[in-house]
């Protein structure tokens, strides 16, 4: 589903954020990218979304080489990949339902389909009664669930999550992870960058550890601990 082949990313100024990273992520997998701040987790997510071009190497997402993707095709890539960020990235002037619907409007879905799908996904994330609220009227955990709803509303085959629990308390984080686990069980591939020990240890999923941009460990059912050796 996702394949990174000798990917290197060096930012202007010489910071090496990823170095010779090779990874194969299969359909339906749940993969944690772990490591200290600055280890390159978020950069890998950004590279998979084509927010940044690679310096060297190749990345395939859903069978397509995205490193050579022309600029006008980038929106199409992003429509097939759901994204969740630590800071939620919700549109402040839109209600919860409008934020979720926006992902479908972009695809040009008819209004009746949009209304149905938004209702369903808000129900899935437990916010069926809060569709008319604005993001500022919700708690952090609720905002993150809106973000998950938006990224999942068009049923993308892949979800990329960059520290989605970073702003949440442990209890709310558990709730969010249960939601992501449910989504993963529908067959969606989930790649999540985190430095939340408890979550990684509890989930017992594949763990890819990064240090200074290099992969130092890749375990099928790993724990967080080894990452900071």
């Amino acid at each position, binding site marked *: 589903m996702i394949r990174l082949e000798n990917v290197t990313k*060096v*930012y202007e100024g*010489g910071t090496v954020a990823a170095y010779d990273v090779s990874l194969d992520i299969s359909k339906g997998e749940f993969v944690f990218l772990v490591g200290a701040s600055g280890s390159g987790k978020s950069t890998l997510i950004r590279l998979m979304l084509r*927010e940044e*071009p690679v310096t060297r190497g190749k990345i395939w997402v859903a069978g397509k080489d995205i490193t050579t993707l022309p600029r006008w095709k980038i929106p199409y890539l992003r429509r097939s990949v759901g994204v969740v960020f630590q800071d939620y990235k919700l*549109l402040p*002037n839109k209600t919860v339902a409008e934020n979720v619907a926006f992902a479908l409007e972009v*695809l040009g879905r008819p209004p009746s389909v949009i209304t149905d799908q938004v209702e369903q996904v808000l129900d899935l994330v437990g916010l069926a009664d809060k569709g008319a609220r604005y993001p500022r009227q919700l708690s952090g955990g609720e905002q993150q669930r809106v973000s998950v709803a938006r990224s999942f509303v068009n049923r993308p085959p892949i979800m990329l999550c960059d520290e989605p629990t970073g702003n949440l308390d442990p209890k709310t984080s558990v709730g969010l992870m249960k939601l992501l686990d449910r989504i993963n069980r529908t067959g969606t591939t989930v790649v999540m960058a985190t430095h939340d020990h408890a979550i990684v240890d509890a989930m017992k999923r594949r763990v890819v550890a990064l240090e200074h941009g290099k992969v130092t460990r890749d375990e099928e059912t790993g724990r967080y601990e080894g990452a900071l050796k």
Partner: protein
Amino acid sequence: MSRFLFLVKEALLSLRRNALIVAGAVLAVFISLSLAFGALVVNEILRINTLAWQEGVHVISFLKDPGVDGVPVDAHEALLAEVRSWEEVEEARYVDKTGAWLEYQELFASQEELLDIDPNVLPASIRIELVDIDTHAAIKSRLQQNVLVVREVTTAADSIEQLQNLSSVLNVLGLGMAVVLGLAAVVLIANTIRLAIYARRDEVSIMKLVGASNWFIRVPFLLEGMVEGVVGAALAVFAVWLGSTNLARAGSGFALFRLDVGNDWFFRWGVLFLIFGAVAGIIGSMLGLSRYLRDAESSGAEVPTGF
């Protein structure tokens, strides 16, 4: 279709939800286009007045008395008919000796000592108004060739030329000011809309992350810019029209200077200014958005040695 309606709805919602920013942009358009439109109105007033001053008698041909020194009796009528047949001549009027004497009496009515003159002293004349004022020299020399009948030809050459020079200088100045202020309007509008978009740059980046194409993001902003431009321009046209109409009413007593431009002119230029406002708003939005729609292109630097 539903997609387009969505984008229109987005633009309208955004106009409502960002009322303060929208008001700032409309104000910028209003101020700059008021100045540009005002300059055009002043230019039009000057044009109307210089045109009015250019109307009237341009060439006077004084004639020898008929029946004297071999001048045929019907020479005046013949010359008048000939002059009237010239295509450069708009109108030719014959003033006989009595007419000239009456005119003289009227002109110097306040100076009694000058009034007592023999009506025979003043010559008859043909007063000529030209189609194009530039032809006055040619007409003068053509008349002077008729030495048998024509005594002397005078033209308002100097004053005509001065008036023409003044008129073209004022025209260039007025249009120049309108163009400069119009360009300033585009820059001001672009800048204001850019600030408005800067305030919403996070929104733009979120839309991109969700997979919105650049055009999908751009259209509501362009519609917003267009609405702001049209509303600002409409307010500017209305304000200048109101000011100009009141000024014309106040100055209706001036005999020598016209201040009314006419509603036809206002309508024609008003529509053009609305279009200009719309285009300026769209261009402003395009310029303001371009930076935030650009994708990262640099693939970065080389890997440092020793990494």
